[in-house]
């Protein structure tokens, strides 16, 4: 077999092989668990438009290589320009690109506009764990600032803000959400960049220290899903995991009711601190007494 045969066949095989791989691949998007099936649709549209162009180009090239092989007695066609062909190709490409862009922007427009009935939940990222905060009865999250953060107040909630008192704090990497509800996920980082990423939800966004970013989605089916960090955040990046359980509303309400509010947490922290102080004091007195005894004996 001559060279041109081999090259043409290999090119053809690359094109067809890629299509077959795409059709039989076991590696594909996880089953969606949010409202963003339109994102999957835009991916399909992009695959169709670009896939056809890709295969057509390679097959055309393979054919050219076969057909226009070098012969010393033949000459290539001398054709510096072909305006008509170039205009046609430009117009068709522009149409194809518009066909990709238009649906993309329409869906993006939904992505950036949070529905009015969306509930709020805050995700807080720090190296290398996730915690969460729900607004309490007042449906309002309390203000936060980095300067309020200390061991008693790891969320940095403003103790003077009345809205923050009933905020429900989840100091755990696992969180629970009710099914069928829209959530505006507020994203806050207290150290470096992170990214709240649940593949089944399709949506994601970075957490940026110094500002609160957000995205929204609607839970569509129950289940347990992995939360990953998708923005390099240091040496523990790959271990910054969490889990989100999507459950029926009643289960969610029960779960949420068992979690401490900021007020309780502060109280607990104060009690804990006071207890610690009492213990320290007692220990101190004991030690002092012991020392006195020792001195007395000497």
């Amino acid at each position: 077999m001559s060279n041109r045969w081999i090259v043409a066949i290999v090119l053809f095989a690359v094109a067809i092989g890629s299509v077959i791989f795409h059709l039989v691949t076991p590696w594909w998007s996880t089953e969606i668990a949010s409202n963003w099936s339109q994102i999957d649709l835009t991916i399909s549209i992009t695959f169709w438009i670009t896939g056809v162009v890709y295969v057509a180009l390679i097959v055309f090239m393979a054919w050219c290589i076969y057909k226009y092989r070098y012969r010393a007695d033949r000459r290539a066609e001398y054709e510096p320009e072909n305006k008509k062909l170039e205009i046609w190709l430009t117009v068709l490409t522009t149409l194809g690109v518009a066909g990709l862009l238009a649906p993309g922007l329409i869906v993006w427009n939904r992505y950036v506009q949070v529905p009015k009935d969306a509930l709020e939940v805050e995700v807080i990222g720090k190296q290398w764990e996730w915690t969460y905060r729900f607004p309490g009865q007042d449906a309002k999250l309390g203000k936060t600032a980095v300067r309020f953060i200390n061991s008693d107040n790891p969320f940095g909630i403003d103790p003077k803000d009345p809205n923050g008192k009933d905020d429900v704090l989840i100091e755990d990497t696992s969180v629970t959400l009710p099914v069928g509800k829209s959530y505006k996920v507020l994203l806050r980082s207290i150290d470096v960049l992170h990214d709240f990423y649940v593949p089944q939800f399709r949506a994601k966004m970075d957490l940026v220290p110094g500002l609160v970013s957000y995205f929204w989605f609607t839970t569509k089916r129950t289940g347990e899903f992995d939360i990953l960090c998708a923005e390099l955040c240091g040496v523990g990046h790959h271990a910054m995991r969490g889990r989100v359980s999507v459950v029926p509303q009643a289960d969610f309400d029960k779960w949420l009711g068992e979690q401490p509010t900021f007020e309780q947490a502060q109280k607990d922290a104060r009690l804990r601190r006071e207890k610690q102080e009492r213990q320290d004091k007692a220990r101190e007195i004991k030690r002092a007494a012991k020392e006195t005894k020792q001195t007395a004996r000497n």
Partner: protein
Amino acid sequence: MADVGTVGYEPVPPAEVEDMELYHPKSFATKYIWSQDAKIIAVQYAGTAVAIGMVGLVLSWLMRLQLGFPEVFDFITAKDYYQFITMHGMIMVIYLLTALFLGGFGNYLIPLMVGARDMVFPYVNMLSYWIFLLAVLVLIASWFVPGGPTGAGWTLYPPQAILSGTPGSSNGIVLMLVSLALFIVGFTMGGLNYVVTVLQARTRGMTMMRLPLTVWGIFTATILALLAFPALFVGAVMMTLDKMLGTSFFMPSIVEMGQQLTYKGGSPLLFQHLFWFFGHPEVYIVALPAFGIVSDLISTHARRNIFGYRLMVWAIVVIGGLSFIVWAHHMYVSGMNPYFGFFFATTTLIIAVPTAIKVYNWVLTLWKGNIQLTLPMLFAIAFIITFVNGGITGLFLGNVIVDVPLSDTMFVVAHFHMVMGVAPILVVLGAVYHWFPLMTGRMLHQGWGKFHFWVTFLGAYLIYFPMHYLGFLGVPRRYYELKDTSFVPDSAHDLNAFITVAALVVGFAQVVFIINIFYSAYRGKKAERNPWKAVSLEWQTPDMPPGHGNWSKDLPVVYRWAYDYSVPGAKDDYIPQNVAPDQVEMEPGRKETAAT
């Protein structure tokens, strides 16, 4: 179309250039080491870039070992892994590809292709190389300081890059920033040279619209680099200040491992804007020279004029211009104002149009050509396939909403390696097979070359094509290990192992290539003059390899564009650019026709 084809002319005498203008080396050291000859500087640049590139290649093997066989290689810790990915990325993008295309190919080809004796500022050109070398040495030094090199990812995003949770945040990051600043200083010296040489030192008759596309690609890329690198430079300076002096350009109030830091009010997003304002043009700084070079390879080896030359030039210029208003497509999920997404998705997808035109014109150059399947041609064809593949996945990532699920996954890794790694490197390889005879007077070994080509092309395709699908699955990038992740099936781990094996094989093939270069430089088959029967000026020098000063006493005079292949009526299927119309050998009984 006055400049396209062979048209009537008025004879002009060659420009007279006084001998004094050229610096003449006086010793071995000034000829080969402290050289001011662009051709030697090109080899110095390319040699240094390839040497550090081999380090980058080995780093990629190490991280592939970890990804393919986690928990097997104990000596690779998470800290090492993040240092590997960071250094691999930075080395390949900046110190290999940018330096190789502009410092290597730019230096070698620009003076020869425009018909100049040398770059216009030879001394500055020499300095450019030595500062580049210094930048590389500073980069290497970061392995030998406490804490090792930075592991912040090649994007060096603060606050992470300068906080203690990241490897190398004490010394490595500072050396990285210093090295980048040095690189930019060195590059600016070279870059000004390339631009001024193209604008001012073209020989008589060499109008801009007669330049080979290689020169157009390198010229435009250099202008992009001169405008884009300053953004990185200031970013590097500001981050150094944040790190060393405690300023807060990029640092808001932060709690680090339970401790309140003194930073206040800075913006991490500001760095990302600065980085990508450089970073996106950087993609085209690598791609445009590749576009140019591959156009010339295809045209020469298909014995056909490049299809739609003027449109090709305009496409390069338009792509270059647009590349400055698309940067935030790297930041769709960065937390910036989401309404920016509309603008940047639109500009990004518009770039697809001139880029697609370039692809069509390469393919249409093959169409009705007289195709010789030489090694440069094979690499050019492989480039088209991998570039189209990578360009198409760019349409996924550029289209803001489609980017949301795919960003920060292996899909992105597969995309940018295909479009910015594999595709340009295939052009580099093709270009080496093409110009090696000019540089050494010998041919590279064909059999080894074929082996090298097939393993590299098919191997790289097998590495990166399936990798996209891991991204669809949701496998995140920059993960030291996946461990148990509920949505990742075992088969994905098998695929990772397969990719690792393929990467090792492809890497091995590059070793064969480098042996081929050294072997053929001394023992290779002697090349005849202008072995590919090319028309551009670099092949028309009085000596091959071209001597000091490139040309004999007279500079060449250019009468035609750089693509007069298979001109109807001419006896040979090529007419070099410096052959006057009345000297073209015609087929018996034909006068040259003005092809317009």
